[in-house]
């Protein structure tokens, strides 16, 4: 399969993840607009159904990720996430020459998704929903956010290693299980720093918010680069160590 076709597959897969996943977070904020959150830790996601709001967002991500993995996994590998690409490269499972094209494709897909989500919903998706951008929640420090993102992505990558990379893994379950794991991580840790687990997933909404409304969240972007990449790389090396003879 040519690099061009694989890159297009990464664009499409990451587009799906951000359009439906981050889009669900934006829609939740739009639906809850006007409600009175019970405390400052609640920014609107949670004021409708408590943790159920996060569960719904997590399921939107889960379904989009599972669909993308089953549809595109054989073509590009459906990484959909620079942290996953870098972790596979770091453990010598992915060629160096393909790393930059894959990451660029993921960033393009995420950006397209944010702009087309705004086009689908209107400017409220940007001004109210923030296009589902992630940021540390009230009371959460910068490095606490990095830690939460690293631990979340650690679990995601550990699952990918066990259910997909390992040749002993049972076939056919990867898409379903990885989607559900992301959904579970978002449900439990979404209210810490948004549970991005993915630099591309945060990049798209950040770019959309900045271009369409002038809202800059870029000061938080290093959280979503350092945390996910560190978590994914540590998980990949740890899995290799634990599963080695």
């Amino acid at each position, binding site marked *: *399969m040519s690099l061009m076709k*694989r890159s297009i597959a990464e664009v499409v897969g990451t587009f799906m993840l951000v359009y439906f996943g981050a889009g669900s977070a934006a829609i939740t904020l739009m639906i809850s607009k006007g409600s009175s959150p019970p405390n400052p830790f609640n920014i609107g996601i949670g004021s409708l159904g408590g943790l159920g709001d996060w569960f719904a967002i997590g399921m939107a991500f889960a379904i989009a990720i599972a669909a993308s*993995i089953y549809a595109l*996994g*054989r*073509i*590009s*590998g*459906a*990484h959909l996430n620079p942290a*996953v690409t870098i972790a*596979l490269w770091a453990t010598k*499972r*992915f060629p160096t020459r393909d790393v930059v094209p894959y990451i660029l494709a993921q960033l393009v897909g995420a950006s397209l998704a944010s702009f087309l989500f705004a086009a689908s919903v209107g400017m409220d998706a940007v001004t109210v929903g923030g296009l589902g951008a992630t940021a540390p929640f009230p009371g959460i420090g910068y490095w606490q956010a990095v830690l939460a993102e690293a631990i979340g992505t650690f679990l995601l990558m550990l699952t*990918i290693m066990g259910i*997909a*990379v390992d040749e002993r893994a049972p076939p056919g379950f*990867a*898409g379903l299980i990885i989607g559900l794991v992301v959904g579970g991580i978002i449900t439990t840790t979404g209210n810490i720093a948004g549970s991005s687990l993915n630099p591309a997933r945060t990049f798209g909404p950040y770019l959309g918010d900045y271009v369409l409304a002038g809202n800059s969240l870029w000061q938080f972007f290093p959280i979503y680069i350092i945390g996910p990449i560190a978590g994914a790389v540590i998980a990949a090396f740890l899995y290799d160590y634990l599963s080695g003879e």
Partner: protein
Amino acid sequence: MKCYLCALDKKDTEAVAICIVCGMGVCMDHLVREELDVWEGGYPFPSRKLKRKLPRILCKPCYAAYHEG
């Protein structure tokens, strides 16, 4: 082993292969040999088609049944 399909026609022909589906012995006139693509990999790696193909021999009735749908 003799060819089962020839035997039905009262002919005594040596079988040269066995159908992988029904297991009957078949002669050269009653077999179909196909070469199937073999793919390696898949999520989270791109799958790739291997150079070597996988040969499969079927008797004509099984071949026809498989391709009917």
